[in-house]
């Protein structure tokens, strides 16, 4: 302690009174406030992006769930039927009958707007054909008043929603400005109404020419079968691998290699898993392209690291005293794990699995490579094997397909599809949170 020179002159300290703020302190406090403000701003920007994203999804996607329908009550007499059937252009005849019917209804309400079959075709598609096939299939409906609900064209829909203005309309094959007068009249007469579009939820994808009729239902089933594969494979494999690594594995090169592998696989870009799927499952093993089975296998490999990591955390959370207690009454190590540790870790494992599945459900990139995107999913699979092996789409792949089409009317479907996808993800995450809340255990 020789150099503890107490005679060293004192260092000059800060301002004497605590009650007055020194100029330097003022500056420092201002810097403090600024720094804090940066944090608030950053957080607000981050949350602002979230709000922006949510708003644009909802604003663009909600219209996909409603459908504009033209409902016309209409009676076809036997004479009209016979006359139409006798003509050369049968559907045109039906269209004319329809036009007359609608005109009559409009005039009843004092609205007089001239239009012809061409207008009808632009506004709601080939009505004549629909009518003809209806009456040919249901001859008993002839002479009886029947209400037809016909979906309006997507442009009409966008006009009524205010997304399409008169100025934007370029006369053409799809819509003419004059048609909008008819739409206005029909809307005023209550003939055009809005209805919930069940077809979007349950329907199949359509070709590029019919955006209005496209639905996401079939690809939901595709996703379902994929998730089934992922669940059936990744849960048992992931749990088995975790049990080995956490409970039995000796510390050696081999287990180290596995550990490093798992943590690195979790960070491999998903597109690389797509390449793996393409090369191994399709090129090498000749599994069918676009099949949910292949998609499920690829997503299983992707999800496994997630499940292993969360399962190991759940196993680790079970205190060693439980194992000791089981071993102490003469259970084998395997029995201790399977009878005591695993059941206690189960809620945590399930939570991790659900979160892993939710991730897999939204994954798109690998599906692009195994051919789930180009495929137009027009039909529901007929049965279990067909659900696994027949080409199908999946929700995110379907959304991508719609977004890649040139007709802008499909974009609305893509946004709508996103809402459906996010609802599924939300539900899964909620279940995971509830599970965690309900079974959370503090040791």
């Amino acid at each position: 302690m020789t150099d503890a020179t107490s005679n060293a002159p004192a260092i000059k300290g800060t301002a004497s009174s605590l009650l007055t703020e020194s100029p330097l302190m003022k500056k420092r406090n201002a810097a403090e406030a600024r720094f804090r403000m940066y944090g608030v701003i950053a957080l607000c920007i981050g949350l602002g992006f979230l709000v922006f994203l949510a708003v644009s999804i909802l604003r663009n996607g909600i219209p996909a769930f409603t459908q504009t329908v033209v409902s016309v009550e209409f009676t076809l007499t036997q004479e009209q039927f016979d006359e139409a059937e006798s003509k050369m252009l049968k559907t045109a005849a039906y269209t004319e009958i329809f036009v007359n019917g609608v005109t009559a209804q409009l005039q009843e309400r004092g609205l007089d707007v001239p239009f012809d079959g061409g207008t009808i075709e632009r506004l709601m598609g080939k009505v004549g054909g629909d009518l003809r096939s209806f009456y040919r299939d249901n001859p008993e409906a002839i002479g009886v008043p029947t209400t037809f609900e016909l979906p309006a064209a997507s442009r009409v829909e966008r006009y009524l929603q205010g997304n399409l203005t008169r100025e934007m309309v370029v006369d053409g094959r799809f819509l003419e400005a004059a048609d909008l007068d008819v739409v206005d009249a029909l809307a005023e007469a209550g003939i055009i109404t809005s209805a919930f579009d069940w077809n979007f939820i349950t329907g199949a994808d359509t070709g590029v020419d019919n955006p209005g009729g496209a639905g996401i239902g079939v690809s939901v089933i595709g996703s379902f079968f994929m998730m089934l594969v992922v669940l059936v494979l990744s849960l048992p494999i992931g749990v088995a691998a975790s049990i080995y690594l956490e409970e039995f594995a000796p510390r050696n090169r081999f287990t180290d290699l596995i550990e490093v592998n798992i943590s690195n696989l979790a960070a491999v870009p998903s597109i690389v898993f797509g390449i793996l799927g393409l090369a191994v499952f399709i090129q090498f093993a000749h599994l069918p392209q676009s099949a949910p089975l292949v998609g499920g296998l690829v997503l299983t490999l992707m999800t496994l690291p997630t499940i292993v990591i969360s399962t190991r955390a759940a196993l680790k959370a079970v205190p060693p005293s439980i194992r000791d207690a089981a071993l102490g009454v003469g259970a084998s190590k395997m029995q201790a794990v399977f009878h005591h540790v695993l059941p206690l870790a189960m809620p945590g494992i399930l939570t991790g699995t659900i979160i892993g599945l939710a991730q897999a459900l939204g994954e798109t990139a690998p599906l692009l490579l195994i051919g789930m995107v180009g495929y137009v999913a027009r039909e529901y699979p007929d049965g279990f094997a067909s659900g696994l092996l027949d080409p199908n789409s999946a929700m995110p792949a379907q959304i991508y397909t719609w977004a890649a089409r040139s007709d802008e009317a499909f974009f609305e479907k893509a946004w709508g599809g996103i809402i459906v996808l996010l609802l599924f993800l939300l539900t899964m995450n909620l279940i995971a949170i509830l599970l965690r809340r309900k079974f959370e255990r503090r040791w």
Partner: protein
Amino acid sequence: MSNMLIMLILLGLGVVGFFLGRGRALQVAGGDRRELHSLPVYYGAHVGLNAVVPAAMLLFVWLIVQPFVVNNAASDLIAAESASEAGDLSLIMSDVRRVAEGLDLLASTEGMSDAAIAALSVDDGNLRERLAGVGVALGADVQADTLEAAKRYRAVDATGDMLRTITVILVALAGLALSWRLITPAFRARNTVEKGILAVLIAAATIAILTTVGIVLSLIFNTYEFFKLYPIGEFFFGLSWSPSFSGRGGSSELGIIPLLWGTFYISIIALLVAVPIGLFSAIYLSEYASRRVRSIAKPLLEVLAGIPTIVYGLFALLTVGPLLVDVFGQDGALGVNWMQGGTAVITAGLVMGIMLIPFVSSLSDDIINAVPQAMRDGSLGLGATHSETVRQVIIPAALPGIVGAILLAASRAIGETMIVVLGAGAAARLSLNPFDAMTTVTAKIVSQLTGDSDFASPEALVAFALGITLFVVTLALNVFALYIVRKYREQYE
């Protein structure tokens, strides 16, 4: 379907074995289960597993090996002159398989007898039509040697199938019988069964390694094929990316540099967005925010991480892109006309940055929280303000961890696919203008493998070379980042 049947038979044998084993155990113990070493179910499981597992493994291996054997047997019949090149042989063999498949269908749908099939010859003339009739469309008329090879293919395949069924069932029965005979009261059935279970557990853990091996092998094989067709130097140092669309044309320029530049540029913009916002949010949430604000804002921010990338892709393509054009494009709010279209480096970079915010913020949050409270106390006790403490003590202390987090985010950005596929454009160019459309390694992997080009062409195979580059770069970044983060954590443990 016959494989399904074999599996069912095996399962049936397993169940039978279980009951036989359990019965035998009780019988040798004279009905007193206390005489036994293990619980009776273990004896049952012992017999059941011995019946099923070896047989199932044999079945699995056989299923993998048989196609190669059959292929070899059939390809012997292909005339050497028609298969002058290695690629041609595989093309012909795929024809052979299709014809064989068609013959199978003919046998099953039209009831053609084996003798009638053996008598088929190309001179019948209508073979192609008949095959088309059962749903096997062929590009050209069937060659004589192809037909013969197909017949041989079918025959060998059928023999293989029969042999397989018999062998597998025999092995199952043998396993059942042998293990059944082993049962005595002193036999340690539980230990054997547990050994079996342990083997299953180890096998499950090995899948992680198999996946990596699968990734590496499939990338390396196809990349090797690619470099046989395209010079390696031009791939890595080529400044131009313009694949020809003709398929097998040699006029493609497949230089990776423009793609790497696009990837790099977009990632940089993404990090420029994500790092300041994420880092400051993390600092605010961990150092300043009240518990209430934290409990609301943190999960909300993490919602951004749970949103699938396709959503971000669509957001970039349909919302952010047009918005940016409204600002920077022709007749835009700024009147600068810098931006021609919605898909651009800045669009993809911005949206990717939004995606990465929670990634940076939650990792940094963890890392900042790992800085010991004693550091904060030490600084505050000296009369430092909170921000001085954060800037001069906490951030320097957490720096390695934060760098690790940023590297992990960078590896995410480099590997991200959907946002760039939808938001960045398709043109590969070396440009400094962030308002230009550019493309990335991942986007080109997608476009080269989803197009119509022939799978053996350099235009398709280049995707594997791109894939291996991507894999190596992201892997290196990850390993490095995880190493830094681990070192950092060890420092404070």
